[in-house]
C-alpha cells in the first residue's frame, strides 16, 4: 500500500480505458488496488467509509478506557487494556487503508477534531455500569463483526486486508464481553439485574449500528454494485438478531424485544420497531455523549502536540548529525 494515489492518469482516453478495466475487475469479483484507475465517486465513497470506520475505532476507545480503573480485577483490567489497544490498532490499520486513496491521515484527524467527519453513533451512549462493558463486547462488537466479516471481501484491496486483520482480533472482544455477562448472570440477583439492564439499554442501539433500513439507505445500492458492501443493512441486522436471540439463552437473560422471531416464510429473523428518530438525533450530534467524546478527542490531540513536535525535532536532529558523516564516507 506504499504508493500514493496515482496521478499519472487523466484525459478522456485514459479515463475510458481505466473505466473499462475497472468494470471488468468488478465484474469478475477481483480487487482494485491503490494505483489502479478508479472512478472518482468510488474513491470518494471509500474514503468516506474507511475514514469514518477508522474514526469509530478511535472514538470507541473512550467509553471502554474510562472503565479500566474501575474494572473489578487485575485480570479484567489487563483484558480491557488489551482491547482498547486493539481498537487503536484497528483505527491505524484503517487510516492506512484510507490513505492509499490519497487523503493524508493528518487531514482525516483534522476533520474528526473539527467535527466535519462522522463516527458510529453507538459511541455516543453512556457506559453506566460494569455490565455495560460486557454488553458492549457482546452486542456492539458482535454487530461490528457481522458487518465486518463480509467487508473482508470488499473490492478495494487495502480495505479488505485491513478488515481481515481486524476480524481476527475482534472475536476476542466479543467473547470477553459475553464472559463478563455470563459471570454476572451466574452471580447475585443484583448482578443479574445489572446484566439485564445493560442488555436492555444496548440492544436497540446495537441493532441500529447496521445503518438505516434498506429503503432509506440511498448509497447502499451503489456500494453493493461496486462489491464494497456484500449484504444490505436489513439483511445483516436480521442475521445478527438471529445470533443474539440464541446466545442470550446461554446467559439465562432476555432481549428487550417481544417481537423477535424467526419468520418461517421468509427464512429471516425479525425484530420489533426501532426508534430511528433517536438515531437521527444522536447522529446529528444531540446524543447523550457526543459533546463529551469530541471534547476528549480534541484534548487528547492537543495535549499530544508537544510529543509529536518533539519526536519530529529529534528525528531532524539525528538526520542532520548523520548527514555529514555519510557524505565523508
Amino acid at each position, binding site marked *: 500500500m*506504499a*504508493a500514493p494515489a*496515482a496521478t*499519472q*492518469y487523466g484525459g478522456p482516453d485514459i479515463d475510458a*480505458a481505466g473505466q473499462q478495466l475497472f468494470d471488468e475487475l468488478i465484474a469478475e469479483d477481483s480487487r482494485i*488496488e491503490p*494505483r*489502479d484507475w478508479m472512478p472518482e465517486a468510488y474513491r*470518494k465513497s471509500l474514503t*468516506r*467509509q*474507511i*475514514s*469514518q470506520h477508522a*474514526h*469509530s475505532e478511535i472514538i470507541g476507545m473512550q467509553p471502554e478506557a474510562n472503565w479500566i480503573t474501575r474494572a473489578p480485577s487485575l485480570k479484567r483490567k489487563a483484558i480491557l487494556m488489551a482491547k482498547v*489497544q486493539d481498537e487503536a490498532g484497528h483505527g*491505524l*490499520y484503517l487510516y*492506512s487503508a484510507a*490513505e492509499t486513496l490519497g487523503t493524508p*491521515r*493528518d*487531514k482525516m484527524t*483534522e*476533520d474528526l477534531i*473539527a467535527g*466535519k467527519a*462522522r463516527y*458510529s*453513533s453507538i459511541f455516543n451512549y453512556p457506559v453506566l455500569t460494569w455490565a455495560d462493558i460486557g454488553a458492549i463486547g457482546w452486542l456492539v462488537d458482535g454487530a*461490528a463483526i457481522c458487518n*465486518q466479516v463480509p*467487508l473482508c471481501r470488499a473490492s478495494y484491496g487495502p480495505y479488505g*486486508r*485491513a478488515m481481515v486483520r481486524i476480524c481476527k*482480533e475482534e472475536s476476542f472482544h466479543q467473547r470477553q464481553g459475553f464472559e463478563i455477562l455470563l459471570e454476572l448472570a451466574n452471580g447475585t440477583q443484583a448482578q443479574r439485574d445489572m446484566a439485564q439492564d445493560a442488555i436492555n439499554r444496548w440492544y436497540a442501539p446495537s441493532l*441500529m*449500528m*447496521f*445503518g*438505516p433500513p434498506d429503503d432509506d*439507505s*440511498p*448509497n*447502499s445500492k451503489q456500494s453493493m454494485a461496486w462489491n464494497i*458492501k456484500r449484504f444490505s*443493512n436489513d439483511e445483516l441486522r436480521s442475521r445478527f438478531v438471529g445470533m443474539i436471540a440464541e446466545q442470550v439463552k446461554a446467559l439465562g437473560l432476555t432481549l428487550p424485544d417481544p417481537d423477535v422471531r424467526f419468520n418461517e416464510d421468509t427464512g429471516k429473523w425479525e425484530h420489533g420497531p426501532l426508534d*430511528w428518530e433517536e*438515531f*437521527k438525533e444522536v*447522529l446529528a450530534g444531540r446524543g447523550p455523549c457526543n459533546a463529551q467524546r469530541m471534547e476528549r478527542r480534541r484534548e487528547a490531540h492537543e495535549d499530544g*502536540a508537544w510529543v*509529536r513536535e518533539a*519526536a*519530529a525535532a*529529534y*528525528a531532524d536532529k539525528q*538526520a542532520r548529525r548523520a548527514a555529514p558523516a555519510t557524505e565523508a564516507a
Partner: protein
Amino acid sequence: MTGGSTTGDDGSTAPAPGPAEKRQPWPLWEVFVRSSRGLSHVHAGSLHAPDADMALRNARDLYTRRNEGVSLWVVPSSAIITSDPSAKEQFFESPQGKDYRHATYYTKSEGVKHL
C-alpha cells in the same frame, strides 16, 4: 437519512476539506514481518513515524501484539519502486504459448515413476 454504522457506510457525503496542515507530517513506512524462522518477511501494512527507530517500535506495537513475528523490517514508503499497473501488458511478458515452462506440459512420460 444519514450516518451511523460502525463501518461508516451510512449514506452521508465525504467530509469537506479542512484547514492546511501546519506540522510537517511524519513520513510513511512499510512494515514487513517474519512470522517465524525459515519464512520470508511479508508485508503487513504501513504506519507513520518520525524516524526509523520509532517506526520499528510502532511496528512492534501495531503489528505484533499477538506474537505474530520474530523479526521486523521497516522501509520508507518513498524508497519503494513499483511497476506501473497501467502498463501491465508491456511489462509482464505474455504467458501465451509458453506452456513448456511448466512440468504439466510434458505428458509423454506419464506412468514413469519419480519423474
